[in-house]
């Protein structure tokens, strides 16, 4: 029976509050067809063997007894054949019961296999769609927004990774230039102050062997060189720090870029957990069905075996009653046709006329016409007491 659930998970909304809005997490499982009893399927069990003989069969047996009361020692032959026949019938019945049990077991196995077979399902959230495949894999499809976000994040991560991969000297140079640009205005002011002082004092053109230029210029250039060295070192440290930070950021962005997928897969996990409820129920149902089917089958087979045994015993008893036993002497049929008027059976059951004349028929038409059922008058199947091997004695 199809079963659909709309599970709305709590998620963080745009305002940061937890929301429980429909559609945020709409996990739809496919229709679940479990919980179907295998016994309720279109399965036809063989009917139980009919343990009661029909009137014709009994009459046949009696007629056979009357026939055997003739001149030849037909009684022994019939007794042997009947015993053989009874044994064969028991074997056939037992074989048929086994075949029926095998067929039922296969059907139950097939139904259990079908009931426990993996049913692919898809989990759809606003992050995307995650689905499973019959082969055991899964597919993942992000929403356009999430795909764009992932592309953006991965692109940013890629850029940052490029920065990580760059020669630190390049970034160092860039940072150095930035630091120097920040320092240079003040340096320029200092230089102008120095120049003003130098030229106001007439020292602007001084060149000395000690300092190159004037001591003031030397001091300025020294301070400038120190600032440059400091900036260079600072740029080096900053470049390395930024590279490490880029690596960290890139890693973070990379992780963030796959977050929608991860969340979708996690939703798939949630869906899997939910689907496990149904699949577990189906598995349990299938197991229960299989167990019950097995128990029913065993019961059926035991009943059938018992019925077969009883039928065989009954036939043997009947034959013994009709024909006597080798140890007990003559039976009911040893004294004439029991179906004729005045016969035992006729006295008991008032047999029809045709049965009363069976002796003639047997004697006139042959033995097998009474012993075996005519194929032109098959038994009706699917009727109570159906026995495919009935119609004979």
């Amino acid at each position: 029976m199809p079963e659909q659930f709309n599970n709305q998970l709590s998620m963080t909304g745009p305002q940061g509050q937890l929301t429980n809005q429909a559609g945020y997490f709409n996990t739809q499982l496919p229709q679940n067809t479990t919980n179907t009893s295998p016994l309720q399927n279109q399965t036809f069990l063989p009917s139980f063997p009919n343990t009661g003989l029909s009137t014709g069969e009994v009459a046949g047996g009696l007629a056979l007894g009357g026939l055997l009361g003739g001149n030849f020692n037909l009684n022994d032959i019939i007794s042997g054949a009947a015993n053989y026949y009874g044994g064969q019938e028991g074997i056939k019945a037992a074989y048929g019961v086994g075949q029926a049990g095998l067929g039922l077991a296969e059907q139950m196995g097939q139904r259990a296999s079908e009931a426990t077979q993996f049913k692919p399902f898809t989990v759809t959230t606003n992050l995307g769609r995650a689905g499973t495949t019959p082969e055991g894999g899964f597919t993942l499809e992000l929403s356009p927004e999430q795909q764009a976000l992932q592309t953006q994040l991965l692109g940013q991560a890629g850029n940052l990774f490029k920065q990580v991969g760059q020669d630190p000297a390049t970034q160092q140079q860039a940072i150095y230039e930035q630091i120097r640009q920040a320092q240079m205005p003040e340096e320029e002011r200092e230089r102008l102050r120095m120049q003003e002082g130098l030229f106001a004092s007439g020292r602007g053109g001084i060149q000395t062997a000690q300092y190159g230029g004037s001591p003031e210029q030397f001091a300025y250039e020294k301070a400038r060189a120190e600032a440059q060295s400091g900036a260079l070192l600072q740029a080096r440290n900053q470049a390395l720090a930024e590279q490490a930070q880029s690596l960290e950021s890139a890693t973070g962005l990379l992780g963030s870029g796959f977050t929608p997928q991860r969340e979708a897969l996690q939703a798939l996990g949630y869906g899997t957990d939910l689907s496990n409820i149904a699949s577990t129920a189906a598995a349990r149902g299938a197991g229960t069905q299989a167990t019950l089917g097995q128990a029913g089958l065993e019961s059926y087979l035991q009943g059938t075996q018992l019925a077969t045994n009883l039928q065989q015993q009954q036939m043997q008893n009947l034959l013994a009653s009709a024909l006597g036993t080798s140890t007990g002497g003559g039976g009911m049929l040893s004294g004439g046709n029991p179906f004729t008027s005045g016969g035992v059976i006729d006295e008991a059951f008032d047999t029809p006329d045709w049965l009363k004349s069976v002796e003639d028929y047997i004697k006139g038409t042959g033995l097998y016409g009474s012993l075996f059922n005519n194929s032109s008058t098959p038994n009706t199947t699917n009727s109570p007491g159906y026995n495919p091997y009935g119609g004979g004695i």
Partner: protein
Amino acid sequence: MAQQLQNITISAPGFLGINTQDSPIGLNPAYASIADNCVIDQLGRVGARKGYTLVTTNGPAVLGTSRGICCILEFISRANVTTVFSAGNNKIFTGTTTLVEVTLPAGYTITEDNWQIVSFNNNVYFFQDNHAPLVSTAGSTTLALLTSSGTNVPPEANALMAGFGRLWAANTATNKYTVYWSSLLAGDEWHGGSAGSIDLTTVWPNGYDEVVAIAEHNNFLLVFGKKNILVFTGADSPSSNLTLHDTIEGTGCIARDSIQSTGTDLIFLSTRGLMSLQRIIQEKSLPLNDVSRNIRTDLLTYISQEVESNGHREAIKSVYSPIDAFYLLTLPESQVVYCFDVRAPLENGSFRVTTWSVLNPLGFSMFADDALYMGRAEGIVKYGGYFDNTTQYQMRYFSNPTDFGSPANLKFLKKFNLTIIGGQSTPTTLNWGYDYTSAYQKQEFTFGSSNIAEYGLTEYNTDGEYSASIIIQTPKVNSTGNGSVVTVGIEAQINNAAFSIQKIDIHALLGRLI
């Protein structure tokens, strides 16, 4: 009825020196229009300059047809060995009596005699442009090139000065705006130690200028451009402290060797004439004074005739004689020497000035014995005596035209009573003229000879000389003619005797009004 003669006295004629700048009429008669071969003597009179004595005996042999000795320096080493260096005929000599060529570095060729020779730290340095600097160590007669290795090339400068423990140099053939200084006490170290330089292109107050000379005065370093003067302080530690103290615009130096320090003044020749930077210690200021204003036009005219080379007039030389208290400025092209009496300036701030002619010195040098030596064509001469070598020379004095305070009356000069100090056997000519004429009427006379007493020489029982210590001549000369303004002059052939004009008394009649 005859008029009474009036006496007009000119006391100490020419005492104020030559004045050719002011209007002669009404000018103080103490000014002279001509005072040639004159000096202001110790008593403030116009007297004959001294002559000279030729010291060098081999001048013609070593100087040939050259101009002569242009540069002289007396160097006394720490070992108290005196060496006189001189330059002329593209050679450098030692000695005074006999000029001996120094030994130059191999292959060294001298093409000019415009050396600036400086004694510094027991060495003598020779600098002039386009010549590698030379050094004489401790007065050695073998000159060597200054150490030059790699970039340590000493400047081939034209201006050199020793001061503040260093040599200072400027004005090379290619750079006339940078002053270089050597390392401390190392005249051969120009690019190491504490050596350095200063580019003055941004310092000149009045546009671009060229360094002509460097001097030290009043603890200032003075850098003379042609039109500006830069005054620096902190020259004792130039690398750290050299600082512009003052600038003087419009006045520079046009002759490197015109700069002389008198102790109180620094005298130099500028385009305005001879200037003096006075020294005021307390105020640390440097008042600038034109000391040649009385002869400005004449001086500048003569200066203009001097050849300018290497950015300045190289031939102009000067000297300050503290003994004679004069500053001499020779202008060789004009063959004129201006003699400025530096005892005291006149009311207008100028020095009393006379001229010297005939002498034609090419260079000067004051020696340690306070003797003034000069370079001439024939060699080194010593200032002294009253002969130019062995010949007489003429002293000339002429007053400015004067009206004796009565410009509207005719003057009839009748008689001159002269008072001359010295002048033994000196042929003298009295000149007078009227109304600005240069065609003077002349009257020659000769002073008699006399022996001057020699104190300390008289011995008893010997012939003593009991005459006066100095001869005073009082010649009297009758004169004729008349005019509204009168010019009086005396020309004397200095004949190995001093000659000073003490007073001129003129007896004259004042005539009618004209």
